[in-house]
């Protein structure tokens, strides 16, 4: 059984991560890859890197996907479990630090706080409508100053007299930063001020009203930024633990979930998926006035999954489209029920009822 392992894939907004663990939760391989806007391609690239690194004898016993692209990635690789990223991150942190009480997670697009008591998640919160205080903001600021994000981090830590930057909103923060820059503040001080503004915003918006107790674990892409870590420990007056796998904690948690969910026969489609020509195709469902845009994931003309519907009619189904589709949008008087009766029998199996009923003449 030594050659069995579990795969966790985290498809986030900025990066795609893969982690392979042994059955007892030890990380064997980790891959962090910044995605170039195409989740399928980056998942495939991750898998092909894995295929090079992994010994032939290793067998993947279970796969779990997480992150905002989890459903699509799950369809592509054939995931056994598809889990939300909040649970995945909490699982990983709890595995490494069983006594953790608070988890901060700041990723590219959203930031979350998870409150843990006695080894169980009791509360969580996610940024609602504002993206200030996430990694993409730092990214864009670094790009504006023409430095890499790593450089921003190392410069910020050296600051001794951080500048005060308005952090309520990214747009105002940016104009404030430009203003401070023009009146001659040092760049490292502005960097540190930016980190502090981001942390202030995070603590007041995302952690609003939450009881934050140490030990605090900080993970997600932004946790690589030393300046943010410093700002956090200054603001909370406690040590911030940054795990050694901080960048891939989501994927690690997903792999742990896969290893703990008693998978008998994995649905994984094999590591060679990396070389398959996977494409997507969109079409409009049109069975009801919702007109959902359904995305079909195709592997060499075979449908391997569908996403994008609202009513669950298409989700995860791979059957031919004609069988799944109903009788088109509800017409002037909706499809007559006596017709349905003869085709599908009594209520037991009727797939062709609209999710949204249009009364009277159809909308054009």
């Amino acid at each position, binding site marked *: 059984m030594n050659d069995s392992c579990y795969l966790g894939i985290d498809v986030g907004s900025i990066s795609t991560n893969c982690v392979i663990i042994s059955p007892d939760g030890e990380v064997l391989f980790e891959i962090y890859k910044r995605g170039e806007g195409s989740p399928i391609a980056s998942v495939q690239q991750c898998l092909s890197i894995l295929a090079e690194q992994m010994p032939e004898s290793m067998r993947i016993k279970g796969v779990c996907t997480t992150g905002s692209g989890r459903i699509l990635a799950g369809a592509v690789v054939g995931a056994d479990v598809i889990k939300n990223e*909040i649970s995945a991150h909490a699982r990983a942190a709890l595995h490494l630090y069983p006594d953790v009480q608070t988890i901060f997670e700041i990723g590219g697009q959203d930031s979350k706080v998870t409150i843990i008591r006695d080894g169980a998640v009791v509360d969580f919160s996610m940024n609602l*409508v504002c993206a200030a205080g996430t990694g993409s903001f730092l990214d864009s600021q670094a790009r504006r100053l023409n430095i890499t994000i790593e450089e921003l981090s190392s410069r910020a830590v050296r600051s001794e007299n951080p500048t005060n930057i308005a952090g309520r909103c990214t747009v105002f923060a940016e104009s404030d930063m430009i203003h401070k820059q023009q009146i001659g503040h040092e760049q490292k001080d502005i960097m540190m001020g930016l980190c502090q503004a981001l942390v202030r915003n995070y603590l007041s918006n995302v952690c609003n009203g939450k009881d934050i107790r140490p030990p605090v674990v900080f993970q997600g892409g932004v946790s690589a930024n030393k300046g943010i870590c410093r700002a956090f420990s200054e603001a909370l007056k406690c040590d911030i633990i940054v795990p050694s796998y901080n960048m891939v904690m989501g994927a690690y948690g997903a792999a742990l979930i896969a290893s703990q969910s008693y998978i008998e026969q994995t649905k994984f489609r094999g590591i060679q998926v990396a070389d398959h020509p996977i494409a997507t195709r969109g079409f409009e469902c049109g069975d009801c006035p919702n007109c959902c845009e359904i995305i079909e994931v195709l592997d060499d003309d075979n449908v391997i999954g569908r996403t994008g519907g609202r009513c669950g009619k298409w989700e995860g189904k791979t059957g031919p489209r004609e069988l799944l589709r109903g009788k088109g949008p509800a017409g002037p008087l909706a499809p007559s*029920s006596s017709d349905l009766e003869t085709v599908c029998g*009594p209520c037991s199996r009727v797939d062709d009822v609209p999710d949204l*009923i249009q009364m009277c*003449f159809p909308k054009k």
Partner: protein
Amino acid sequence: MTYMAIPNIGNYTIALATAVESLGIKAWASTATTPEALKLGINAAPESVCLPLKAHLGHFIEADRAGVEYAFMVNSVGTCRLRYYRHMIGDIMKDLGLKIKIFGLGFDGFKPPIVRYFDPGPVTFVKPLIHTALKIKVIDELEVAAWRTRPVEVNQGDTTRVMNRLLVELSESRTMAATRAIRKKAARCFAEIPIDTEKRPLRVGLVGEISFLRDKCLNKNIEYILGSQGVEVRNFFLLGEELNNISRIVLLNQNRRKYLSKIADSYLQCTVGGHALDSVAHSIRCADEGYDGMVHLCPSGCMPEVSVRPILKRVSKDKDIPILEMSYDEHTCGVGIATRLEAFADVLRERRKKKRSLVHRVDMVIKPNNADIEKKLNKVCP
């Protein structure tokens, strides 16, 4: 045939459509705001108003484009913006140069203006109204049955299919007898769905703004997402109950609000408008009834719901019931909503497991017939 556009209030639109027939005209509506309509409304409305107004506005603009001449808009008595929806929508549509005529629910004299305008005969007027009341009752029953069955169904999607199919039939039924037949059939159909009787689903209450509680397009199908996560939902807006409340106010001078404000008294003494008092009172009641959690749907920019958010946080802390805050606007994406709801269901499941193990531990140490321990047990697991 003359058509009248009516606002979307979820599945109850089917019943409202029958009510419109009492005026001798036909209704034009759908059971949720379509994405197209939402787009139109967002373009036409001021940016900072709440999403329900944009949804209704877009719906009426779409109706006008389809050639509908009349529209009807409810105006609630709550002290929130909903009261002025009709005037605002009317003004915006006038500015856009649209011709649709919007009626409200106001009384000026014996007959409401909408009845005076169409002037139907007494028989054509009364009969569909009784039919409407019956339909509302049936839809109430369907909703409740769907909440209960969805989390325990064996084949995922059965409940939604049965429900949607029955709703289609209901929207076609023209006579009271047909509606009564559907009611009987509904009981049979829901009983036929194979369910897992051993499963004890999590129970979650939905509170918040009414358009969001009802409109599948606005709340991103929250009942379905939660139901398929194995959560039994209780949505605190049933039109039947609201109408019961109104008739009780008129006939018996008993307002449910009095009862609710008694429950919420230690948290909220004054009215803040809308359904905010309901949100607080129902959260407290659910906590006392042993619900696992609450979900609060709040459009960003909705004054009443935003003002009770800190109060709900307090309730959550005092009563030890997790309350998930959901803030919606037109930029809210479905993936974010689904992620939060899934994580929330995970949290509730873990809490329940933890509570159970706690009970187990207490059980093992001391004999269970001790009165003190029993009290403790009841507290942990009511």
